[in-house]
């Protein structure tokens, strides 16, 4: 069931500025879409509006073509899983998972069967009689997921499903979410501030910036072909070179560069900003054919990668390389810089 949000607007009482401004969003049937945005961008508000826990000031929300706005939360076919597992402390794990079925007045026998099946699928078999206080963080998160999925919702809303977990548990939970989603084919909207969480979970990402969706598409497209400087910056550490595109060439402080393929025609002629992903930059020997030469200003060890600050003829540039390679560099040394055409992208000049 496809979810479509059109022109959604919400101003929280007492606020002067709208949290959500004219938001358009589409979640394809049977797919996982991530709503990605910085903390405080109103992501949870969007979820609560879709779930019916908040009332919008304007806009339209349809699920499978039918408007769900007039419906109370329990009739929307939408189930939201909060960031905090919010298990009911006075109920056992099995009772928690069966909560929604019980509220719908289903027969006890059917509830038992469906709960048992769900516990098995979420690797919680044997924990049914435990109290939430006796669970680990990862287990509690799985119970929360089971409690939502057992209802077979038309739309599943997940609020930051991985961010409260330890790194080791994150991978398990991510795999579980992906497996269960594939098996049930439930249309899923994940809300997160964490780009890796969005990239590893979602088929498509909607990037929420300043109350609106700044770009909507497959993760690699948003990453490689950002629609604006703000989008490019959201993924962090991008090199930015203002300049001008003319006749298939982008002219900037580092000299002419070939225009990337697939650029929107509006950007192939006129002022723009060239963006270069730091991890795509190749550092080679200065003698390398076609390489630009730059001076190494500093190296910072980041763990799996090292950041190298460069001075390319007066223009600052940052590159991410392997720590082993960075160890061989010394401050002040000259290196060759290769900018692969695939690492280049042009966005509109925000000025």
């Amino acid at each position, binding site marked *: 069931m496809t979810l479509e949000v059109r022109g959604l607007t919400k101003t929280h009482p*007492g606020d002067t500025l709208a949290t959500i401004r004219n938001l358009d969003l589409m979640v394809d049937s049977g797919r996982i879409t991530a709503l990605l945005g910085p903390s405080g961008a109103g992501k949870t508000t969007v979820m*609560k509006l879709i*779930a*019916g*826990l908040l009332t919008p000031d304007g806009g339209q929300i349809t699920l499978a073509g039918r408007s769900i706005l007039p419906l*109370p*939360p*329990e009739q929307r076919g*939408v*189930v*939201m899983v*909060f960031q*905090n597992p*919010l298990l*009911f*402390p*006075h109920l056992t794990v099995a009772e928690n998972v069966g*909560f*929604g079925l019980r*509220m*719908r007045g289903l027969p006890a026998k059917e509830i038992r069967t469906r709960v048992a099946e769900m516990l098995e699928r979420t690797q919680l078999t044997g924990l049914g009689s435990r109290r*939430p*206080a006796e669970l680990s963080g990862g287990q509690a998160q799985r119970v929360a997921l089971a*409690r*939502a999925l057992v*209802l077979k919702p038309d739309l599943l*809303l997940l609020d930051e499903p991985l961010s409260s977990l330890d790194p080791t548990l994150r991978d398990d939970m991510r795999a579980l979410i992906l497996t269960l989603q594939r098996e049930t084919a439930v249309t899923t909207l994940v809300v997160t501030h964490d780009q890796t969480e969005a990239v590893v979970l979602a088929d498509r990402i909607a990037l929420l910036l300043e109350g609106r969706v700044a770009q909507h598409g497959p993760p690699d497209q948003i990453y490689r072909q950002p629609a604006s400087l703000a989008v490019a910056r959201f993924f962090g550490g991008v090199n930015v070179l203002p300049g001008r595109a003319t006749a298939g060439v982008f002219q900037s402080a580092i000299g002419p560069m070939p225009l990337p393929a697939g650029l929107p025609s509006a950007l192939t002629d006129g002022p723009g900003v060239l963006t270069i992903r730091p991890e795509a930059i190749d550092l080679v020997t200065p003698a390398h054919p076609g390489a630009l030469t730059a001076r190494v200003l500093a190296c910072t060890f980041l763990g799996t990668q090292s950041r190298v600050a460069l001075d390319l003829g007066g223009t600052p540039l940052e590159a991410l390389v392997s720590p082993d390679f960075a160890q061989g560099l010394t401050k002040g040394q000259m290196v060759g810089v290769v900018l692969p055409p695939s690492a280049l992208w042009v966005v509109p000049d925000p000025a």
Partner: protein
Amino acid sequence: MEGKALRSLAGATLALWLILPLVPLAIWSVAHGWRFPALLPEEWSLKAWAYALSPTSGVLQSLGVTTLIAAATTVLSALLAVPAGRALALYRFRGKGIVVLVLLAPAILPGITVALGLHGIFLQLGLTGTIPGVILAHLIPALPYMTLVMATVFARFDTDAEDQARSLGARPWQVFVHVTLPAIRPGLLVGALFAFLISWSQYLLTLSIGGGKVQTLPLVLYSFATSGRNDLTGAVAMIYILPGLLALALIARHLTGRNLALGPESVR
């Protein structure tokens, strides 16, 4: 280990503190002539108890009236204090400070001023001398306490749990019964105990509004005490303190101040 011993010592001291004053009353209730220098009564007798429990004394009847009034006061307090406490704790609204002040006013003002002012109003409404009138009057001191207890309970209540239940398909009344009520139950019990005991121990309000027609135990007790019947006073006092001790024993484990509401810290 040392902490444990200290705790037992504190517990024993507290128990003594509470029980010691009751010992003479208990002895009085079974004494027959107990004059000053004697450490214990010369003769023992159950006459006072027999009279107190007989229909002619009216003690049992007023026990019933007192229980009825205290129970009704408790239920009404709870019905009003749960939404009021929730509003105070969770919602920001204009004039909240004034509402708190008005709520606390009966607890700050001397009881006699409240009783006298109220008497005039209740007289006009025809509520004086009636049990409903006394119940309404008892709400004045009971409600603020219960509301404040419920406000502290709701201040630690995560309303996301209600949203979560709603999203899982619970209708509003189901959310209250299955999520909110279990979460606030310990605090609700504590508040109810307060309300019950406040009503149970009212003297002034019952006297002024009940006008002597509504005879609760404190009134009966006082009349025996002033008439010099020490044995009867002892027996009635024993009956009078019983429900309070019972209620306290029943919900004592909720009185530790912890676990008052479903909150992040209350997870064991």
